[in-house]
């Protein structure tokens, strides 16, 4: 896992990502004004996850870094997901 971080991300890429993020923000606010019932939280979380992923991959250079970093991040998020899912094995099925 030697380091080959010679990749310098250009300003253009960053600005493009930023524009996408702003668009997604506008989207999530717009969607929130409709009543989608139980779906509104799902949509909001999906949009937020896409935004977070963009920030991590481009702004935080995960896309260009060594693979080990992507594995680490996956492990961390997976752990958090498991904590949440297992906790809800109690709450979702409670009488």
């Amino acid at each position, binding site marked *: *896992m*030697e*380091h080959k*971080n010679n990749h*310098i*991300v*250009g*300003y253009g890429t*960053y*600005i493009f*990502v*930023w524009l996408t*993020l*702003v668009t997604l*923000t506008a989207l*999530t*606010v717009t969607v*929130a004004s409709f*009543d*989608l019932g139980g779906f*509104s*939280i799902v949509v*909001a*979380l999906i*949009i*937020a996850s896409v*935004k*977070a992923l963009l*920030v*991590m991959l*481009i*702004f*935080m*250079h995960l896309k260009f*870094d*060594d693979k*080990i*970093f992507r594995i*680490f*991040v996956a492990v*961390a*998020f997976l*752990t*958090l997901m498991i*904590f*949440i899912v297992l*906790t*809800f094995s109690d*709450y*979702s099925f409670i009488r």
Partner: protein
Amino acid sequence: MNQIAETLASEHIHRDEVGAKIGMWLFLFTELILFGGMFLAYAVYRFSYRDYFALASKELDVFIGLINTLILLTSSLTMAMSITALRRGNKKLSLIFLSSTIIFALLFLVNKYFEWSAKFNHGLFPGSNDLLSLPRGEIIYFGLYYVMTGLHAVHVIIGMIILLFMLFYIKSNKVNQDYYIMLENSGLYWHLVDIIWIFLFPLFYLIH
């Protein structure tokens, strides 16, 4: 590897940069899980108090939240560009980008201050009679709101302090084109603060 170990032991030259980055990411995981615990609490309470959460969130101003989201996104942009500028050897541009990041952080906090003080003027602060007279689900909503956005604001402040240090380090050439890992790591921290806000915004401001 051998060389890395030797340079590390002789303390003055540059450290192992990949190592530093691994360390930083591991630290970010603890921050992530720290907020994760609160998101878990949020999820459980939203599950049990769905309607109350929707009702209570009407008290928040979506516009302020939106402005703050845009401010943080833009600050992330300038942060990332500051690193690129430094690595391309443009110290001055890097300093400009970094300063604007800090100014955005400050704007975020000013905005937050006005938002919170408006709530306080409405009597909606922890332990107030107005708050305690609300239904239990709304008390919990505001409890989580204050704790989560408050702790996020603390992180913004810490981030600002770190970035101020970076400003001085770049000025004094301690952080430079060849040794930029400290700026990169500070950037990672700053982006994490942004990511947390990306989730806080819809979860508190955009509920129906």
